[in-house]
């Protein structure tokens, strides 16, 4: 067994920031991560970090844009914290050596991004995430933080109190991918989940293969509600063949979208008469699909993004990486031809429910980064708002887990007296969240054991599970189930959603769940068994996909990225509330908590979102 004060699961921007903060607060901190830190998906972020740095801009404008962008589903205390802390945290990165792009006077450059009233996106070429990730990892090295890399976290270890709000998290169970050894990691102070997004629930995604929602599923099974899972961002400009992202920076710098008739459709067909290409992402994604649907798509599938007019010098200066991506992955030279683009799954606005200190309803369990939902993005995330979330809330989670007092949170978590129960009769019977019984909550039989006992039992259970998976020599393989699941989600829970489609998806997800009962691992080796790892991941994807589809089904309105054919309006009287799905007694339970629109000095009144 390994033991530390704070254990951070995941080493992307959020995990590294949490670990550095915890270490600075004096905690013995370790990171457990399935990928070496510099391989984390944060490295793929291109566009930039929003921070109100310049005169003429201020955090209140940033907060206002974010609330508006969220379609009034962001919680004001979280949004204001993001806007207030981001400038300082961004400057911190600069002082840690991050190579931001510069103006002539040596100050950091900023550029316009969709949905922002001021050009406040701070960037490092079109490789902002790469630089952020490496800069953060350098700090972790500097602090001597212990990193268990290529260790896959299989489950959380929590006490077994009946009410999830009374449970405590004592650590995690993980296995060393290189050796297959399964061990317990005891956390004396707290566990911070920073496992990133669940993009692999879809088959056309900008997300890495490692983005399998492991943290989501582990927290869910342990009794933490997942919040606003229906809000999935589809980025308007991904390459059709692979899903590789073409940064919003291209449109920020003046790139133009054309349909097959050569029309600048954002204006010509009235999708966003003011902002055009720089309208918010959900708007542009729908516009593109509408164009394709109207027969004006290229090859009936995508549209064109053109940056040729920006000139070679500017493109090389600010968007060079985009040229490489278009060339390597689509065979297109962005300097002489327009690039093909279509919407692709990109970001999960929802996630593990936390308060503004990163804490969940389970004592000692924190979450930060894309796996968490504080909630700052609400119904739709503005480009450039995820990276500040990593550093702002990663830091807070790390500090709080290390024992620093950050004050009373205003956001409440878990099932409580401020929630509203869902009384819709679910038209489909969703499957149970766990594949086997006695999962998630560490101890069996209602006995609350001490931390060490809980850890031992949890380790034992994972060892038995792995033996079971490996001893079986026939059955279904994870790859088959995974691709069926991804297809179901892409076909039915995509940009456009209908009740009938979502129900079909839920039925298919349930089939995946049943097939999973018969899953087995073909590779007999304990050494670097990716077959085993992907089998674990696939199970997590099933849980996450189900919550996305359930959320999409119950939210009978049109808000942000969540479009419902039968409900073409935003219903503020009924739906200014978060969807929460928790796993209780072996099945998903849905409830709602009102959105907090009161900020420090003002209340954000829902307004029509126009661009």
């Amino acid at each position, binding site marked *: 067994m390994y033991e530390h004060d704070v254990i951070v699961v995941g080493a992307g921007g959020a995990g590294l920031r949490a670990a550095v903060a915890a270490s600075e607060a004096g905690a013995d901190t370790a990171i457990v991560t399935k990928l*070496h830190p510099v391989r984390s998906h944060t490295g793929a972020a291109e566009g930039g970090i929003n921070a109100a740095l310049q005169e003429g801009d201020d955090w209140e404008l940033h907060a206002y844009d974010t609330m508006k962008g969220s379609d009034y589903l962001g919680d004001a205390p979280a949004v204001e914290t993001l806007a207030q802390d981001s400038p300082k945290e961004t400057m911190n990165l600069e002082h840690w050596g991050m190579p931001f792009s510069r103006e002539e006077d040596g100050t950091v450059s900023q550029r316009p991004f969709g949905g922002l009233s001021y050009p406040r996106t701070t960037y490092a070429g079109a*490789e902002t995430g790469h630089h952020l990730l490496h800069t953060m990892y350098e700090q972790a090295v500097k602090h001597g933080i212990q990193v268990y890399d290529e260790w896959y976290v299989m489950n959380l270890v929590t006490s077994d109190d009946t009410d999830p709000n009374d449970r405590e998290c004592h650590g995690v169970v993980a296995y060393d991918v290189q050796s297959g050894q399964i061990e317990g990691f005891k956390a004396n102070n707290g566990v911070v989940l920073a496992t990133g997004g669940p993009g692999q629930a879809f088959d056309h995604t900008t997300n*890495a293969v490692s983005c399998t929602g492991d943290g989501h599923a582990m927290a869910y099974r342990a009794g933490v509600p997942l919040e606003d899972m229906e809000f999935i961002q589809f980025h308007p400009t991904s390459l059709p063949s692979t899903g590789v992202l073409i940064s919003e920076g291209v449109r920020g710098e003046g790139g133009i979208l054309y349909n097959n008739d050569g029309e600048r459709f954002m204006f010509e067909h009235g999708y966003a008469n003011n902002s055009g290409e720089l309208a918010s992402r959900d708007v542009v994604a729908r516009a593109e699909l509408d164009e394709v649907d109207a027969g004006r798509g290229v090859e009936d599938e995508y549209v064109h993004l053109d940056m040729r007019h920006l000139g070679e010098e500017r493109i090389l200066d600010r968007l060079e990486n985009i040229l490489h991506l278009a060339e390597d992955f689509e065979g297109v030279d962005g300097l002489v031809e327009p690039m093909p683009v279509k919407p692709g799954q990109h970001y999960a606005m929802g996630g593990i429910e936390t308060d503004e200190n990163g804490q969940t309803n389970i004592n000692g369990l924190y979450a930060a980064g894309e796996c968490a939902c504080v909630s700052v993005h609400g119904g739709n995330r503005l480009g450039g708002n995820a990276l500040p979330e990593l550093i702002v809330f990663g830091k807070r989670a790390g500090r709080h887990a290390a024992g620093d007092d950050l004050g009373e949170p205003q956001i409440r978590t878990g099932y409580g007296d401020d929630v509203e129960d869902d009384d819709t009769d679910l038209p489909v019977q969703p499957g149970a969240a766990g594949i086997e019984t006695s999962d998630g909550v560490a101890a069996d039989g209602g006995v609350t054991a001490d931390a060490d006992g809980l850890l031992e039992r949890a380790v034992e259970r994972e060892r038995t599970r792995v033996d079971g998976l490996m001893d079986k020599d026939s059955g279904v393989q994870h790859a088959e189930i995974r691709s069926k699941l991804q297809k179901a989600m892409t076909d039915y829970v995509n940009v456009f959603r209908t009740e009938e489609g979502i129900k079909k998806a839920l039925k298919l997800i349930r089939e995946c769940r049943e097939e999973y009962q018969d899953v087995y691992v073909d590779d007999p*080796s304990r050494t670097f068994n990716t077959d085993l790892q992907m089998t674990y991941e696939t199970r997590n994807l099933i849980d996450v996909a189900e919550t996305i589809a359930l959320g999409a089904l119950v939210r009978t309105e*049109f808000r942000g990225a969540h479009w419902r054919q039968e409900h*073409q309006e935003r219903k503020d009287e009924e739906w200014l509330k978060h969807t929460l799905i928790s796993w209780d007694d072996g099945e998903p339970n849905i409830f709602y908590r009102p959105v907090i629109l009161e900020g420090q000095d003002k209340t954000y009144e829902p307004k029509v979102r126009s661009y």
Partner: protein
Amino acid sequence: MSTQQQQQEPESQESPKDPEMKGAESPQQRRLKDKESGMVDEHAEKEAEAADETVHLKVFRYDPEVEAKQEPRFDDFHVPFEKGMTVLDAVMYARDEFDSSLTFRHSCRQAVCGSDAFFVNGTQKLGCKTQISELEQPVRIEPLPHQEVVKDLVVDMDHFYDQMHAVEPYFQDEDTPESDELEEQRQTPENREKIKMSSRCIWCAACMSSCNIAAGDNEYLGPAAINKAYKFAMDDRESEDIKAHRLRILEQEHGVWRCQTQFSCTEVCPKDIPLTEHIQELKREAVKKNLKFW
């Protein structure tokens, strides 16, 4: 069903186009229906095409734990070719469809995570960045040379990481701003430009694997670590003292002077970092500094 939705105008009017869906099916739904009803027999077409053209892969296999794989061997896979297919796509297909024990690292599929550097037809390449169509068949895929093989295409990266860490890879100016100060350090665009290429390294280890000197001298810092040090040493934001400290690390016996300018690292770097040039520049800096001292 169409009339009902039409009468409801969405409150959020950013997209006047949305209500024009006329309650009709979503584009996805329509395409799906077309497919299901066989209107577009895309699938069959694709299969036929694919059957025509397959890619022949010869993939290195080894597993210390599995008897049949203890003796290293090559396995043949015939994977249906698709336009735009990369080496990574091909091995993923082979794994998912033919042999789930086929093992390799990969994650981002877009040349930023650095995990899938392989030895492809005799050269270090990123799998995800290498188009199959550019390669001669059969395509031989092996783990990176000069690194211990853990299993199949997975090599032990510990030594590479150790060398990266040996150059103290973190910024060393200690003037983090006071609580609410927002003043950044200044860096000229020219200085940023100077370190730009060096800052692109994704730690894929292709360069280290291609370097003859590194192969013969286990202690040689190697091109990636030296390049990492270059990034800091050339950044004007660090002080002169720290730069001198960095140069001292680089000048040691197994540092920059080991490089014999064979350019193999520069040739294979998937991020086009001019590694050899950076190493030469550091040699010159070290000489300049020493002249000053003596």
